[in-house]
């Protein structure tokens, strides 16, 4: 039994630096082939195979953006405007012009002028589909693979598989996560250490104003009474009590875990606020992200924050942006949303590129599903989980590339279909993880992100 072996080996080899995980949970660590490195469950781990992507920035659009108005060009839809659609309703052509962008001529609408300028870095997946036609369930499936059960999120699996590179910061952060959706960055049955740390979740600490400016808050990040020096003295006392316990009890990995988590927490107190303070960024950079004011400011700052986390070695960074559910008022609301994110995303891609980080950072954009080619309420579109578009950019994916297709109107994925399970398998693959091998034993069976599904979309790999 591997898990016994793993634990025994850990015991033999561990003298210090075990880390975080309570003893009781240890025997459930199923992934035993990393014995020398699992001592700290967050230490960087070797992937299953070499890969280009070292980290992920996931730009999550909640509410489901319309694909047929943005990244999925459907000339036939415009021609058939007003006719009855295959699945009923009257087809609604896109009111925004599509143009071919970049050297490879990717069709992207005028709603994303700035992102379009980066077309040669984008890998559009135009054949997405998922099982869930309603937002919460589809969001949950996008994050965890299933809407039926509480399961670990994509970021938690990534962290479990790869560890992280900065010991002063959490390995998985979720910026501006919608409240009450902690499952989307949770670890479920994976050890809690793999769950995402929510940064700038509105409501915690009453930081609404800071939030609006794209800043962020972390609870209990600063001591209200002690100076840093006093706190270090206090921490030394805590640690000496902990070490005393460790010395008198011959084997206590959980005490070592506590010792380490205090050191990380202590470092985070400096590192995190510092990382989140963007005042050292130049005006030019802020402008590039659209973080210098206007409607793109909040998301611009969040994207900038994402880059700073990425730069600092955080493994998985998610940034959420909401209000894409356009059942009505599409002609006004959709361009508004796009303006909020267009510059920030282009800025992020440019910035990563100029820092030579796009080559090992995987940027992902997408919502939980797409919208119907047929009209709803005259000026709106309904939910459509049968076909939609997400895109990736950066490490390991072909730039200026379009993968898969929906039917002539954009209803359903028909060519090189990419189910959310396939999408997950592909993301893990890009990180060097085999989605069939990345398992965790819980309640008597091995679980994985893709359950029994998932095929890597090889066509998009560069």
């Amino acid at each position, binding site marked *: 039994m591997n898990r016994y072996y793993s634990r025994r080996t850990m015991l033999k080899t561990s003298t210090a630096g075990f880390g975080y995980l*309570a003893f009781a949970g240890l025997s459930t660590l199923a992934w035993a082939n990393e014995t020398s490195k699992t001592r700290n469950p967050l230490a960087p781990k070797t992937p299953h195979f070499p890969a280009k992507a070292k980290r992920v920035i996931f730009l999550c659009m909640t509410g489901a953006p319309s694909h047929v108005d943005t990244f999925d060009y459907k000339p036939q839809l415009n021609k058939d405007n007003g006719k009855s659609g295959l699945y009923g309703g009257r087809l609604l052509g896109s009111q925004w012009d599509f143009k071919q962008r970049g050297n490879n001529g990717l069709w992207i609408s005028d709603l994303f002028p700035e992102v379009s300028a980066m077309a040669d870095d984008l890998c559009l997946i135009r054949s997405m589909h998922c099982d869930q036609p309603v937002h919460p369930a589809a969001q949950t499936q996008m994050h965890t693979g299933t809407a039926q059960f509480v399961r670990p999120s994509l970021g938690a699996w990534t962290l479990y598989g790869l560890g992280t590179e900065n010991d002063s910061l959490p390995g998985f952060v979720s910026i501006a996560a919608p409240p009450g959706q902690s499952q989307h960055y949770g670890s479920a049955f994976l050890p809690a250490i793999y769950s995402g740390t929510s940064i700038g979740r509105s409501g915690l600490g009453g930081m609404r104003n800071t939030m609006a400016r794209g800043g962020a808050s972390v609870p209990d990040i600063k001591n209200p*009474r002690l100076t840093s020096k006093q706190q270090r003295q206090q921490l030394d006392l805590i640690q000496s009590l902990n070490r005393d316990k*460790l010395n008198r009890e011959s084997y206590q990995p959980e005490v070592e875990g506590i010792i380490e988590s*205090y050191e990380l927490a202590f470092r985070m*107190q400096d590192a995190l606020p510092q990382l989140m303070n963007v005042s050292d960024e130049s005006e030019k950079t802020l402008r590039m992200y659209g973080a210098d004011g206007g409607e793109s400011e909040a998301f611009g700052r969040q994207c900038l924050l994402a880059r700073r986390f990425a730069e600092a070695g955080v493994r998985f960074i998610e940034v959420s942006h909401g209000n894409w559910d356009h059942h009505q008022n599409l002609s006004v609301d959709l361009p508004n949303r796009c303006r909020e994110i267009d510059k920030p995303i282009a800025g992020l891609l440019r910035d990563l590129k100029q820092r030579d980080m796009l080559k090992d950072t995987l940027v992902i954009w997408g919502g939980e599903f797409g919208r119907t080619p047929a009209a709803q309420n005259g000026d709106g579109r309904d939910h459509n989980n049968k076909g939609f578009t997400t895109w990736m950019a950066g490490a390991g994916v072909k730039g200026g590339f379009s993968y898969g297709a929906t039917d002539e109107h954009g209803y359903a994925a028909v060519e090189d279909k990419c189910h959310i399970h396939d999408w997950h398998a592909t993301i893990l693959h890009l990180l060097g993880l085999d989605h069939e091998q990345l398992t965790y034993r819980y309640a008597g069976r091995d679980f994985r992100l893709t359950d029994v599904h998932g095929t890597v979309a090889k066509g998009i790999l560069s």
Partner: protein
Amino acid sequence: MARRLLFLAIFVFAASSIPSLAEELSDEQAKFFESKIRPVLVKECFSCHSNQTGNAKGGLRLDTVELTRIGGNSGPAIVPNDLDESLLYNAINHLDFVMPPKRKLPESVIRDFREWIEMGAPDPRVTEPTVLEVQITPEDIERAKQEFWAYKPPVAGKAPQVKNRSWSKSEIDRYVLGGLEQASMTPPKDAPAYQILRRLSFDLVGLPPSLDQIESFERAYTKDPDHAVAEMVDTFLDQPQFGERWGRHWLDIARYAESNGRDVNMTFPHAWRYRDYVYDSFNEDKPYDRFLQEQIAGDLLPAKTDEQWATNLIATGFLVLGPKNLAEQRGTQFTADLVDEQIDTTTRAILGTSVACARCHDHKFDPIPQTDYYALAGIFVNTVSYFGTPASKYGSIGGVQNRNSGNLLRLPIDDPSDFEQRLSPEKVAELKSELDSVVQEIAESRRSRRMNDAANPQSINNIIRLTVKAEMLSAIVGSIDEEGNPISYCMGVQPVDRMQTVRVLERGEIDRPGQVVPRGFPAVLQSNPTVVPNDSSGRLEFAKWISSRENPLTARVMVNRIWQHLMGTGIVRSTENFGTTGLAPTHPELLDYLAVEFMNSDWSIKSMVRKIANSHCYRMGTEFRQDCFEQDPDNRLLWRMTPKRLDAESIRDAMLFVSNQLELDRPRASEVAKAGFMRVRDGNLVNPAAFVGISAGMSRSPGRFQSMMRDAYTVRQSGGERLDMINAKYRSVYLPIVRGESPRVLEVFDFAEPSMVVGERESSNTPNQSLFMLNNPFVIAQSEALARLVYQSSEDRSEQIQTLFRLVYSRDPRPSELAAIRSFIDTFEVDGDQRTRAVRTYVAICQSLFASADFRYVN
């Protein structure tokens, strides 16, 4: 072949009389339908409402009799014999709905529909139900019953003979020692007295021992360890804190929370009654079989007094506390999911088996065919859930996004919480007439909007505004009687008026019915199949069966949970999975012995706790032994006691307790009850009106509603930490548990996710916890209180430090620790006069003791 009239696809509550199921259509009826009804449906309705055209506006499809009677988002299109409930009839008459949109059908056609509905809406467009073949055969089930340990009834055998007779003090010890001796291992040394006391105290009442208890226990233990432990156990079992501690374990299983969770997260202001019921039940040592019966079928049990009746009703809250997607647009789907959640929670909590796996296909691993799932579903489908978001006499007045409001059960006794306000009769009358007019206004606005179609977006906002207003007003009006006295409500269930049969659903999809499945229980768990009478939902029978000795799992699952809470891990370590994919018991004979003892003791939980806590095993030391570890790394044979990390409640309560701040009295109701019916947002409880106010420009609207809006914003501005309750001094088990917003002090220490059945909590050590212990104002406040207390306890510094250690760790400081403290006192730099400096230094020391691993772990 007889054409069956499938009256409803499953899960729709029949509100009116239904023609006989097997009734065949007469030629005349068929002709009526074919000549007068079908052509109209095809011509006038199908373009927007049919599978044929692929349009399902408002979720409505009219292709088949089933789809017609499921209806769309607003309810069934046709209810036989009921013109008022038949929304299609409502629509063609241009009442609340206006169909066809632009013109009215000729009077003669409307008359035809009237006639048709009144004759019972005979409809030949019946989908032939497919007969779903299950793959798991009766032979498979029989074989599993013969072969798999968990499906055989527990039988108490004889404990093995052991060599070390003096060590084994009880049957339990002989079973455990037998295993160790067989593996040539010896039991470990006993833990020191203070550790045993600390274990007992935290395990039984969730608090550290007091200074007096430490002293007297150590004295008694030196004299006679067995007697000392037995006395201490009895003392703790008699304290009300026992029920709070062990009741909370049950609440983990019962996924207790005070809001429904998910996207539209509305409060459950009456959930606390179930919480208190659970604590009281554990304190009364209510027999576990009775406890289960009350929770599953309390409403159906006889009650001698109104108080008993009230208790029984409150108990059924168990079935309705689960997370719900109130925003779900399809009512049938909502109900199917509600039933599924009830099946899942009940079977995993009580049977350690996930029957819900068989919703869409046969269970992949366990011998549970899909039909067994629908046999159980039949029980819960014939049960009405009262989850109250909000209570309303006006039926389901939901919010804009709260599309599936339930109602509440009125208690037979008056037992208002302190937060339920009395209103003057005049005020009541005023609110009621306002509500009536709002309800009427909504109907009118809807009508006028439909007439003008999509041209006027302002009217949408108007309807939203009015709907929220109605929702809020009905919540207020619903909570008081005619005189303005608060009505006491609880959450719970009631039987339906008229039983429905249930059909298996292909792939679990609501519009793909298969054969009818009689109500019943999983075959593999029954010795003789129970037959549920036709006129019974089967819920009472289910409650009796699940809590009976015949059932091979119930007692085993519960004693395993008790064992786990005391010994650290279960005998079956997968506490919610006693199936083939679960983990096999480490001591199968011990498990059976305990299960039989449990049943023989009239299902007494306290007796079982007493039995285990008095065993020698419970006193085992935690000493690590390399040779044992090599042989048994998972400690399956129990060669030592595994150190346990305190759970979140114990950590918080212990800080309050040792700083002498803890209030042991039960607070009345809950913070959520105080807030009432609210939407949960940003760590706060917010008046639902605040949401539409923003989008619909409500804050500019005149009248009473404006002040309501102002209140809503005021609550909102008071900060997002309301639910963290850092100033509360009562026990953690009374903190508000709102889904998605658990108080930080609990959340950070692996509190049970309130949407899941949690038999065993995580026990992680994270940087987040470290930040909490280093910086959280609650921790600092308790450190300050403790520092003052310690400082005043003696003039002598050594005595002060000794008191501190005994309070926090239940033991004297070790020399090395004293040295560390002294060195800290000498070097810690702090301003102020001598006393200030001394106290502030002590604050830092007290916080350090709280923060250290020794506080968090019980050895």
